């Protein structure tokens, strides 16, 4: 029974990971090939690479704000949908639609919305003489645009998980709190929310790890610009590997990203264990 699982993990996780690790210690270049230099030179370069530092900052901003927005909005929508009964429950499907749209299509939609000459939002405000700022020409504005696009397409995932968790909470608890005179807000804060913590931690972890792989939104909406100010670490690994042909250094960046995600996962899993116990 365990053989298929072992094979799947071996094929889809261990083999690519081992390949990436081997490359990261090499000097393999797509054009120049290799001079058989093996060692930690790529990792030594990582330490002094200003572009990597900038990419980590970009990744952190995009991940922290993006995941926070997705968890808050996803939870709020889930709480709202949980109260809906009868045939209106089918309306939940509507909220899942953004999750079903391919990321490149999402990015194109938001690129249009954030481009002043194309955006209906800008056109609407222009009617009243209000000029909406050009988001994509400043670092903060461009990161905001990516966070918005990422949140729009990914909040339904958090919504689904939280909705499932909400449905696992006994309604008797809320009824008992209501009998004791608790307001709806107090009931949510002091009863529902603590019971949601394991689900919130899990969904935050999942979304955070996924958010480290920022690519399509950046590639389509900003191309990493203005300048290089929205080149997150995953995007930077792509630049080194495919644009600069420096496969070995790109692999070293990917290894760094993998270790970073693993450490975060470990601590969040431990935190989850503590909360659960």
């Amino acid at each position, binding site marked *: 029974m365990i053989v298929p699982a072992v094979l799947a993990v071996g094929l889809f996780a261990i083999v*690519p990971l*081992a390949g990436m690790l081997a490359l990261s210690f090499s000097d393999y270049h*797509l*054009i*120049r090939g290799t001079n058989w230099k093996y060692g930690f030179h790529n990792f030594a370069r990582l330490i002094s690479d200003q572009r990597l530092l900038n990419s980590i900052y970009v990744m952190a901003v995009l991940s922290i704000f993006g995941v926070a927005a997705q968890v808050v909005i996803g939870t709020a929508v889930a709480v709202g949908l949980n109260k809906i009964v009868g045939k209106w429950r089918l309306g939940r499907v509507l909220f899942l639609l953004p999750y079903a749209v391919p990321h490149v299509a999402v990015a194109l939609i938001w690129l249009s919305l954030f481009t002043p000459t194309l955006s209906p939002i800008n056109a609407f405000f222009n009617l009243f003489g209000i*000029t909406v700022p050009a988001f994509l*020409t400043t670092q903060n504005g461009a990161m905001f645009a990516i966070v918005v696009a990422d949140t729009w397409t990914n909040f339904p995932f958090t919504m689904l998980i939280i909705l499932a968790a909400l449905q696992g909470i006994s309604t008797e608890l809320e009824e008992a709190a209501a009998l004791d005179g608790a307001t709806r807000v107090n009931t949510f804060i002091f009863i529902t929310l603590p019971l949601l913590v394991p689900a919130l931690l899990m969904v935050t972890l999942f979304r955070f790890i996924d958010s480290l792989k920022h690519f399509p939104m950046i590639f389509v909406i900003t191309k990493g*610009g203005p*300048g290089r100010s929205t080149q997150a670490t995953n995007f930077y690994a792509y630049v080194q590997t495919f644009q600069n*042909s420096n496969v070995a250094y790109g692999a070293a960046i990917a290894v760094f990203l993998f270790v970073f995600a693993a450490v975060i996962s470990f601590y969040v899993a431990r935190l989850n264990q503590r909360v659960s116990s």
Partner: protein
Amino acid sequence: MKNLLATAFIATLVVGAPCAPAIAQSDEVNVVLFGMPYTRGLQAIADDFEAESGIKANIDVIGQDVFENRITLSFTGATGDIDVVHTPVIQVQRWVAAGWLKPITEEVDAMPGKDDILAGPLDAYLINGERWALPFMAGAGLMTYRKDLLDAAGLDVPETWEEMLEVAAAIHNEDTAAIALRAVPGQGFNMFIFPMIMRAYGGKFFEDYVNGDLTPAINSPENLEALNIYIKLLNEYAPQGAGNFNFAEVNAAAQNGQIVFAVEGTGVVSQIVNPEKSKFARETGLALPPGGPAGRSPAIAVHGLGIPASAENPDAAAKFIEWAVSTETVTKISLAQPFPDFTTGTVADNADVIAKYADVHPDFLRLRVEALDLAIGHYRPLIPEWPALGAAIGENINAAVNGLMSPEDALAAAEQEMADILGS
């Protein structure tokens, strides 16, 4: 051991790679192209090739974004699953250096239609005495302008970038911006446009490219003057948000009447002046891009078809390429698609083609030829490192355009990064 590293690279890519077509049978040829009017047109008439040759063409037209990953996976792994590959001229040096392409000199020399291919684009694929691809397209830079608005303002079409600044200042207003240009970073984006200004001012990328001195020379007074003009045009006379414009946004702005001038490749220009697509096509005039003290240097972009070194069916691939660039095939595509950028010379003699593009704009084909005549083959340097160099320069230029660094710092940083890339 190198194979082992290549295998490791493939292992890291293969799980996330899109499904690759199976190795073609000997009576099949697998073709991988990225989306543009010609490639979509070719895909639409693939059955014609089978009817003519008995060889089935499996033509895969994919997005440019996944193209790079797709072909890198195939080439490094020598998987043999691609027989014909879309070969942009700005990539061919890199691919040849990496040993990814098969020389096709003999095949090209044996083709009866070889002499019908325009010499400039044909020779762009001549490296170390061998031919590596056959061109199907050569796009050039042209300028579009709103005749009605210029006439109303009593202004002439600018001949130089200096004049462009003056005209832009006179005509720019809240409703209609003076100009839009590609600004988003990338060797095919802002680095398709900026060198037109740079070369007009005598700027260059290297000390002496033609004679092989590749000492970076981007940090020069000429390039600084050109960059200041580019920045001024984009920041003072372009629509809001122009610092992130790519060709799609420039095209849309021109088609919707939001700008007076656009300087773009002929592929985009043909859409700006097409009455079926553009609200202001009839009011739009065409001209060569502005020049400067060193003359005029329209952009040029050449695309071709090559055969990967690992191709399973190189003979069938050569037959496919011969068919794909033949007068008959290119004429069909040119009539069915917005594709005026053909490199097969006799297509320009076809009465239907002439009528179609004369209807789009009477000066279009003539100006395209003039621009191609003026363009220099190494408009963007034809060296293996260009994709990395172009990206690095483009990112610094874009940072200067959007005020993240000064023009002086941007050029200094670009020059340092060029040296790092060439020296690493």
